[in-house]
């Protein structure tokens, strides 16, 4: 009762390397779509208003995006693991204020940044521990910590505020300065972005973040230290939220108890527009950064075109939907191209 007795015949090796490049290219297209959309939008605006892409204009665009890019990078990491951190806005707010208070008291700017980052680490760890040890839904937990951190911030800060006058000049100048059109802050964000992307692609633990977002149970069976990785993602997200807080302080020179509130929806939008899928396991930080750039640019484009601010919100929303729809269509194309290519009959 044997099924078959034919012993296997050797199979021709797979012609692989060319197809790899194709896959790579096709997959990059997902980010490409957003990139093209962004460029088109900027070009159109430039046509409508020649001052838009002046040195100052470019600098403003980059500066506006910096903080969101940083937070979105951290968020992307968390979303890749099939979790979410809604508390980033609160963390940003409290660490910005902490850094501000320290600077107000005559502290050194570098120490202030470190302080903000450390606060970020603390809250990131808190979120990470709650989510990974408790194994409870991240959405609920971080919505909870969003409220908790914001509440603590409000109680601590009260009606105090920190203004540019309280900060060392060097710090504030750093926030708006740079090499011609490229602000220092944007360079920091870029460095963080590139190294995060490199880490995700080329290091084992980076790939494991994708794996456990893709299928947590399979990750456990594959011996991936799931809890430690989730903790890592949250801590990293907290670090970037804290760093973003410090940069926010430098950029706006102005923080109070409301700083960063409501930021979570913007960050999540940026990440989603950037093609990082909410069910985990796919997407890149470059995508998230592009999403952030797109979103903040919209806010600069509309005023520059003289669109009444009454229209801004509606256009914003419609653009957001457009961006995800385009992304989706491209993704479907990719999938069907893959299917055709890999069809086993033919």
């Amino acid at each position: 009762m044997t099924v078959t007795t034919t012993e296997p015949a050797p199979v021709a090796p797979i012609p692989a390397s060319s197809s790899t490049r194709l896959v790579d290219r096709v997959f990059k297209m997902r980010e490409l779509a957003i990139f093209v959309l962004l460029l088109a939008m900027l070009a159109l605006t430039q046509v409508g208003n020649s001052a838009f892409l002046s040195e100052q204009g470019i600098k403003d665009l980059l500066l506006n995006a910096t903080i969101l890019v940083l937070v979105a990078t951290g968020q992307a990491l968390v979303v890749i693991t099939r979790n979410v951190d809604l508390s980033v806005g609160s963390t940003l707010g409290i660490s910005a204020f902490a850094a501000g208070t320290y600077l107000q008291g005559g502290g050194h700017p570098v120490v202030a940044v470190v302080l903000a980052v450390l606060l970020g680490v603390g809250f990131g760890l808190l979120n990470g521990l709650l989510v990974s040890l408790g194994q409870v839904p991240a959405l609920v937990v971080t919505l909870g910590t969003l409220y908790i951190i914001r509440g603590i911030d409000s109680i601590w800060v009260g009606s105090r505020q920190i203004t540019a006058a309280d900060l060392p000049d060097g710090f504030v100048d750093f926030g708006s300065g740079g090499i011609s059109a490229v602000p220092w802050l944007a360079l920091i964000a870029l460095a963080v972005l590139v190294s995060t992307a490199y880490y995700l692609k080329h290091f084992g633990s980076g790939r494991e973040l994708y794996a456990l977002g893709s299928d947590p149970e399979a990750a456990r069976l594959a011996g991936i230290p799931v809890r430690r990785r989730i903790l890592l993602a949250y801590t990293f997200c907290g670090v970037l939220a804290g760093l973003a807080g410090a940069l926010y302080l430098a950029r706006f020179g102005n923080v109070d108890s409301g700083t960063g509130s409501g930021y979570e929806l913007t960050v999540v939008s940026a990440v989603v527009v950037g093609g990082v899928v909410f069910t985990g396991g796919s997407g890149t930080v470059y995508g998230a950064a592009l999403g952030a750039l797109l979103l903040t640019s919209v806010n600069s484009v509309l005023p520059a075109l003289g669109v009444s601010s009454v229209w801004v919100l509606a256009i914003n929303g419609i653009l957001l939907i457009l961006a995800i729809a385009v992304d989706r269509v491209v993704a479907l194309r990719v999938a069907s191209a893959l299917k055709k290519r890999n069809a086993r009959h033919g």
Partner: protein
Amino acid sequence: ATACGGTTKSDVKKESGAAASAGKADPNAPTKKGLTVGFLPKQVNNPYFTTADKGGQKAVEALGSTFKEVGPTSATDTSGQVSYVNTLTQQQVDAIAVSAQDPGALCTALKQAMKNGVKVVTYDSDTKPDCRNVFVSQAGAEDLGRTQVQLLAEQIGYKGEIAILSAAQTATNQNLWIDYMKDELKDPKYKDVKLVKVAYGNDDAQQSFQQTQGLLQEYPKLAGIVSPTTVGIKAAAQYLSGSKYRGKVKLSGLGTPNDLRSYVKNGTVEAFELWDPAKLGELAGHASVALASGQITGKEGQTFEAGELGTYTIGKDGVVDLGKPTVFDKDNIDDFDF
């Protein structure tokens, strides 16, 4: 308008006039002690309101009564503010001093409060007149609107394009001021001044920031910006001071000395104005106690004592004006701390 038998706008009568209480005012009634006055700002944690409410506290406590402050943490949480009115009513305070987030939304709750014997004073932002007893106005809206334009026009030499950076589109007082600004600009002496745009930064630092950028990109020849909101003027100042426009584009409007001190010193801002929020709160406190003591009811023409501030007379629709705003510049700014 009732063609289909429905209820339309024209069927609804306009009500107006302050809700003067039934009882008569007795200007000589003794000031009651041991009252409780609840202050309900648009937003707690907002430095402006904190200063104002401190003034209120000073007045109320000086008169031998108890002060308390409650309020929502967001300036757009109208339902939150309504619940606080309800709560204060439940707690049977003697008077509520409230800065309304919305002219209509608080009405039902405030009327309910007045029905339960609570006196209602609005300050900074009014409700519909029939929903409160007295409105303590920071300054005549007309004064504020006109003086802001005058201040900026002087700085730009009565010549060039100007823009307004306001808060939310729905902010009642902002809109009123803007109307007066536009009216002031009709004066022939402003024939070379052109208002090109009203932008809205929603009292959010970052949005106000980007709106300022947008204004400058759209109108490269912009000579000046008026921002009749403390958040807006601060954000605009921060942007200008870090950009190539510092000192070239003039900025004026309403701001607090503490916020703008450094920008005045580094030349971004020449002069701006504001009333003293502490005094506004103080006056609201006095008005509350006077109402609760029965010295006034909110009718036009009644007068009451407001301690150091002097004597005030209630105007039309139950409005009390604090007085003219103060102009701050390099020379006097260090004399103020709020």
